[in-house]
């Protein structure tokens, strides 16, 4: 098929126009590669292996990020921790987005008592600081990775409800949607073909931002001792374990902290880039 000069440019073209988007994508790509290495166990050392004779060593060619007080390799542990953080956050956000978007679209489209109920329910969850609610849920559920992600999912579901519901309320009153209803199209078809495409842009942006919050929440929980349990590595837990030794071994605190920061910065920049790329009003060309 010949490409017409008038054919609109794809989303990727606009995404590549934004510097922050590119930088963010690169940072994120780096962290994803790092996690994949950890998934396949391509690590220079075993993240759990203790080696007291090498305890508290600074960064060197053998131990790139140094070692902690048990002689465990901080580089391997950071990679493994990043994998764990990403696993928890990605599954949490997937659950939250799926449930939240479905409920949001339905409640916006159906309206009436269903809408009232959903809005009230999300108000209830919104009334808690995220980490506090996650703490309370984890304390009853338990703290294996899927329970942690479930707790985080509950906390972030209402945000997706709100993000999806808003545009639906506007779109369903538009003439073209009213026409399809008069023509007798089924609700399912209207939702899928006419309403869903209009809410994808804000949702995609929200996914990137929520992932960054989920990572912060997960590491916060682990820091407080309610997420990943020792001896397993998690970025938040590593920061917590580094507390007593940070004065003599800065690397134990610095590297896991830097990993969290990099991935959160990356996700936020990707979010900014996506927002610019998907919002026609912000496109410069």
């Amino acid at each position, binding site marked *: 098929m010949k490409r017409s000069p008038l054919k609109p440019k794809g989303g990727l073209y606009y995404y590549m126009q934004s510097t922050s988007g590119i930088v963010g994508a690169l940072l994120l790509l780096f962290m994803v590669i790092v996690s994949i290495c950890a998934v396949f166990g391509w690590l220079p050392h075993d993240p759990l292996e203790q080696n007291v004779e090498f305890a508290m060593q600074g960064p060197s060619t053998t131990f790139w990020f140094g070692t902690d007080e048990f002689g465990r390799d901080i580089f391997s542990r950071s990679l493994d921790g990043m994998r764990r953080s990403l696993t928890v956050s990605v599954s949490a956000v997937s659950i939250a987005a799926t449930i939240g978007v479905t409920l949001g679209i339905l409640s916006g489209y159906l309206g009436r008592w269903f809408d009232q109920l959903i809005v*009230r329910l999300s108000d209830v*969850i919104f009334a808690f600081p995220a980490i506090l609610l996650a703490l309370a*849920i984890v304390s009853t559920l338990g703290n294996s990775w899927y329970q942690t992600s479930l707790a985080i999912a509950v906390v972030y579901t209402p945000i997706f409800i709100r993000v999806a519901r808003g545009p639906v309320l506007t779109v369903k009153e538009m003439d073209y949607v009213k026409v399809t209803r008069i023509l007798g199209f089924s609700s399912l078809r209207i939702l899928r073909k006419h309403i869903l495409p209009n809410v994808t842009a804000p949702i995609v942006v929200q996914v990137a931002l929520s992932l960054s919050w989920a990572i912060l929440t997960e*590491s916060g929980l682990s820091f407080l001792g309610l997420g990943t349990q020792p001896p397993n590595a998690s970025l938040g837990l590593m920061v917590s374990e580094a*507390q007593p030794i940070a004065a003599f071994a800065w690397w134990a605190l610095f590297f896991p902290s830097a990993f969290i920061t990099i991935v959160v910065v990356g996700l936020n920049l990707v979010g900014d880039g996506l927002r610019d790329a998907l919002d026609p009003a912000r496109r410069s060309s």
Partner: protein
Amino acid sequence: MSVGERTSRILLSTPVLRIGSIFTTLFGISIFVFLVLRVIPGDSIVGAFGIETGVLTPEQIAQLKIYYGIDKSLPMQYISWMQSFLTGNMGYSYSTGISIASLTAKALPVTIELALIGTILGVVMGIAVGTFSARKPGSIRDFAGQLFGLMALAVPGFVLSTTIVTIMANKFHYFPNGYEFVRLWEDPWMNLQQMLFPGLVLGIAVAAPVMRTTRSALLETVDKDFVRTAIGKGVNSRKVQTRHILRNSLIPIVTMTGIQFGYLLGGAVIVENIFSLPGMGRQVLYAITKREYATVQSSVMVFAILFITINVITDLIYRKIDPRIKQ
């Protein structure tokens, strides 16, 4: 919009229903909190006895259930919790034997003071950096300001706190939080020193979104006609900046500050634990590790009430700063 929808919107906009809806939300919250913590029954016993729970006889367990008030049906448990919550003592903390109300009365002022200090520092930093950035969009200054905003967003509070503690205590030998906590009315100077670093950590978290909002609100207002008119008629530029531009950008800033306050309460859970401040966040975490559900339940409820109060106050403030918002 149907007639029914329209009437309900009008009704919902009246203050009476606003208050009504706050109470419905609070009711929902109380049920939610109650149910979340009841997913696994009997855990207060496990919490108190640990592995020894296994050797308890069925009679002992039944007795303990009565002691902890978990022998009754769920609705009855809910009602008795609400009764004790509303009439004052909020139940008792089992490990210390003190009423949760008196624990809360001690802890809540600490958290509120911390939150206020955090918000003030955050708003001041956020507006300052945001204005600094917006003055010349696209410049190096703007880039620096935005970088600050991004880092403030991405560096978690516990990392910042741990770093501050390490540097201050070891390099400067200054660590007021190492001493026992003193209250504001006992020794204001010491208290403020103890609140400084945790407040700063929370303030930086608040500053990031406030900075972003300030920047974009300012950039939007600068292009408005009334600003051009003001400059055109020769109002001096400082006055245009403050009276015309900043004044009109305040509403999104106030909204953002209100929203951030909620997150800040969450941040307080972490920060209070690192800086050993005896506030609500510490109370909750302690109760969670001890599996004292009554304490967790009531404290989380207090957090939610605090959060909703903030929302109402935010609402009142923007009615004040924007006379256009009227019933």
